[in-house]
C-alpha cells in the first residue's frame, strides 16, 4: 500500500519523502475544512517547489462553498493551475464544475467524508470527471473490500488517525460560551473536547471561519487489519511530528497494533466501523437497543 499523509508541518516534508510517501494533502487558508497548515497560494507554491516532484501534492479545497465565496474560489482554483500541483481534494460539486470550466489539468479527488459508500456511486462520478475517491469513514471492512475491488478509479482508504464526525456552519462553541457567559478560545490549537453525558466517549471540537468541526479523539488504527486498496490515508490532525513518523514506519514495516500501543500507551485506538458496522432499519435499531440494555 502507498500512503498519502495530511501535511501538518513544512518541516515534515523531507522525512516524508525519505519514507517514500506517495503524496501529501495540503490545507489552505480559506478553502479547507480540517486543514492543519492553512496555506496561501504563495505558500502552496513554496511547498510544491520544496517537494519538487518527489511526492504528489494534493490541495484541500473541501469546504462547502457559499455563493458569496465563489468569486474568490474561482481565482484560487485558477491560481492552482499555475502552481504545478497534482490534484485537488474536494466535496462541493461546485468546485468540480469550476475546475471543468477552467479546463484545469490537475486531478480531482472526491472526498466528502461521509458519502463515498459504494462502488456504483463512485463509478458514476468517474463518468462525470472525478479521478479518485477518498472512502467514507463509516464503512465496514467488507464494504471497503467490495468498493476497492469494483471501483474503476483509484480509492484512498483511511487507515490511521482521528476520524471526521461532523461539520457545522454554526459557531457552536462560541454560541454556547456566550450562553453561559464564559470567555474561552475555541481554536484547533486549544484541543477542546466534548464528552457525551453518561458515556466515557470524548471527541475533539474546534471552530474556524468555516464553522465548527468535530473529530474522534480515538485514532483509527488498521495495523492488524490488512486493509485492501492501493492507497491508504493517514490523518495527522492532533498528532505530533515524531509520533506521525513512527506511525508511518509501523505501517510500512507491517508492525502490529499491539506494538504501537505498547510504545504509545497514552493514545487510544479503535477500528472505526471496520469491524462493527452501523444499523439503520427500525428493527435493527430496536435489536441493538435491547442488546445494549442487557
Amino acid at each position, binding site marked *: 500500500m502507498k500512503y498519502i499523509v495530511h501535511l501538518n508541518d513544512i518541516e515534515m516534508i523531507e522525512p516524508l519523502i525519505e519514507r517514500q510517501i506517495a503524496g501529501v494533502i495540503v490545507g489552505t487558508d480559506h478553502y479547507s475544512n480540517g486543514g492543519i497548515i492553512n496555506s496561501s497560494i504563495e505558500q502552496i507554491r513554496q511547498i510544491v517547489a520544496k517537494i519538487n516532484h518527489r511526492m504528489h501534492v494534493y490541495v484541500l479545497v473541501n469546504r*462547502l*462553498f*457559499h*455563493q458569496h465565496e*465563489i468569486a474568490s474560489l474561482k481565482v484560487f482554483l485558477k491560481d492552482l493551475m499555475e502552481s504545478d500541483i497534482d490534484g485537488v481534494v474536494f466535496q*462541493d*460539486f*461546485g468546485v*468540480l*464544475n469550476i475546475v471543468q470550466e477552467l479546463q484545469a489539468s490537475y486531478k480531482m479527488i472526491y472526498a466528502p*467524508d*461521509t*458519502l463515498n*459508500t*459504494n*462502488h*456504483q*456511486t463512485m463509478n*458514476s*462520478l468517474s*463518468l*462525470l470527471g472525478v479521478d479518485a475517491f477518498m472512502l467514507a469513514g*463509516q*464503512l465496514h471492512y*467488507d*464494504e471497503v473490500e*467490495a468498493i476497492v475491488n469494483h471501483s474503476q478509479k483509484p480509492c484512498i482508504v483511511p487507515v490511521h488517525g482521528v*476520524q*471526521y*464526525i*461532523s*461539520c*457545522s*456552519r*454554526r*459557531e*457552536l*462553541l462560541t*454560541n*454556547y460560551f*456566550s*450562553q*453561559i457567559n*464564559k470567555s*474561552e478560545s475555541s481554536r484547533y490549537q486549544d484541543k*477542546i473536547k*466534548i*464528552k*457525551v*453525558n453518561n*458515556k466515557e466517549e470524548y*471527541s475533539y471540537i474546534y471552530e474556524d471561519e468555516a464553522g465548527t468541526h468535530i473529530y474522534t479523539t480515538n485514532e483509527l488504527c488498521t495495523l492488524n487489519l490488512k486493509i485492501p486498496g492501493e492507497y491508504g490515508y493517514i490523518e495527522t490532525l492532533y498528532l505530533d511530528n515524531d509520533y506521525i513518523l513512527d506511525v508511518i514506519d509501523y505501517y510500512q514495516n507491517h508492525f502490529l497494533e499491539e506494538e504501537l500501543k505498547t510504545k504509545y500507551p497514552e493514545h487510544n485506538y479503535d477500528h472505526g*466501523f471496520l469491524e462493527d458496522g*452501523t*444499523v*439503520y*432499519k*427500525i428493527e435493527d*435499531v430496536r435489536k*441493538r437497543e435491547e442488546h445494549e440494555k442487557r
Partner: protein
Amino acid sequence: MRNVSTIIDGKRVITKKPELLAPAGNLEKLKVAIMYGADAVFVGGKEFSLRSLASNFTLEDIKEAVEFANLYHAKIHVTCNIILHEENLEGIREYLKALDEIGVAAIIVADPYIMLLAKQLHLSLQVHVSTQLSSTNAEAIRFWQKQGLERVVLGREVDYQDLKAIMAETDIEVEYFIHGALCISYSGRCMLSNYYSRRDANRGGCSQSCRWYYDIYKGDRKINTDEDIPFSMSSKDLSLVDHIGELIELGVDSFKIEGRMKSLHYIATVVSTYRKLIDTYCADPDHFEYDPKYMTELNKAANRALTLGFYNQKPSQNDQLFNLRDEHPTQEFCMRVLHYNPVTQLAKIEQRNYFKLGDVVEFFSPDRDNFKMVVRELYNEDMEKIEVANHPMEVLYVKVEGLVKKDDMARKVGK
C-alpha cells in the same frame, strides 16, 4: 432576476406562484396535507429513504397517494435519499421504474448513482437533488443541471443574499426550506449518530445525538460547571413565515415544509397557514400587509421555539436550544370532523385526544378562519349524552354552533 408577476387591469399579480411542498409520514397525513392546501407532498418509500423511524409508504400506498393527489391536481415526490452502501444497491433499478409507472412526479435523491440511473432509464419522473448533498452555490447547481436533473433542494445554510444571487444566476428549479426542524451540521455530513449510537444517519437511522447533552473539557479542566446548562448542539426550528413575500418575489420554485415524522395536527396547521399566506400575497402583492396571526397559528403546532435559521445571518446562541425544557408540547389535537348537519348543528367527529364538556376547542379548516367554542354537548354513536371523549378514534357527536365541514379539525385550547 426571474419574472414572477404581471400587471392585470393596472394591478400587479403574482403569476409564478411557488409550489407548497409538504411532508407526509402516512396516507392519512398525505391526504390532509393535500386537502389543507399542499401543491405537492413528499413521502418516503419503505426502501431507499431516510427517516426509517417514520411509517413510510409501500408501493401500493404510493399508488393510492398518486391517485388521491391527481384528484386535487397535486403531485407526489418520493424521497430516495439514502446514501447507498453496497448492500443497498440491489433493487433500486426496479424500484425507480415502479415509481415512474405509478405516476410519481419526482424523486428526491442524494446519491449520484441513483440520479444518473434514473436519467439512463429515461423515466418520466423528475429527479431532484436532495438537501442531503448540501448544495449551497450556483456552480454546484449548474453541475447537476448539466447532468439533466430538474431541481435542486438547497442546503439549509443558504441565506437570503446568497439565495438571491443563486436565483439570478441559475435557471433550474430551486427548492428552499421555509419551515421545520434544522440539522445542526451540514446535511449528509454528520456522523454524530454513527459514532455515538452506531446508527447510520445517512440511511435513516439518525439518533439526533446533536440534541443530547455534553460536557466540554480543555485539557483536564471541565469548562461547563454543574451550575451551567450543559452543552448541546440542538437548533430551534425554522420558520420563514414573515419572509414569504420576498421569497415569492425571488421566484423560488418550491417552498418546502420539513417533517415526515410530524403529526396530523402539525401538517394541517402548518400547510394551511402557508397556503393562506401565499394565496393572500400572490393576489395583491403590492398591498400585502403581514399579519402576525400567521405566526400565532404556526406556534400552535410548534413543539420547539422558532428561528430564522441562516436566513439573515449566521445563527447565534439565540437560535439554539441549550435546554430541552425549551421544547414544549403542541396544543392538543382533539377531533376531526367527519360530517356536519347544519340543521341539528351536530358534527360527527373522530376523537383524537382526550377532551370533555367545558373544554374550549378551536376549529380550523383549510379555507376558513378559526373559531373557538366551549364544548357543551357531547354524544356517543348511539346519541347518548356523555361527558368525556377518552377513546382514540371513537366516533362521537359534538354540538357546534359555527359552520364546520368534513375534514375540519379542532384543537383543545383551554378549560
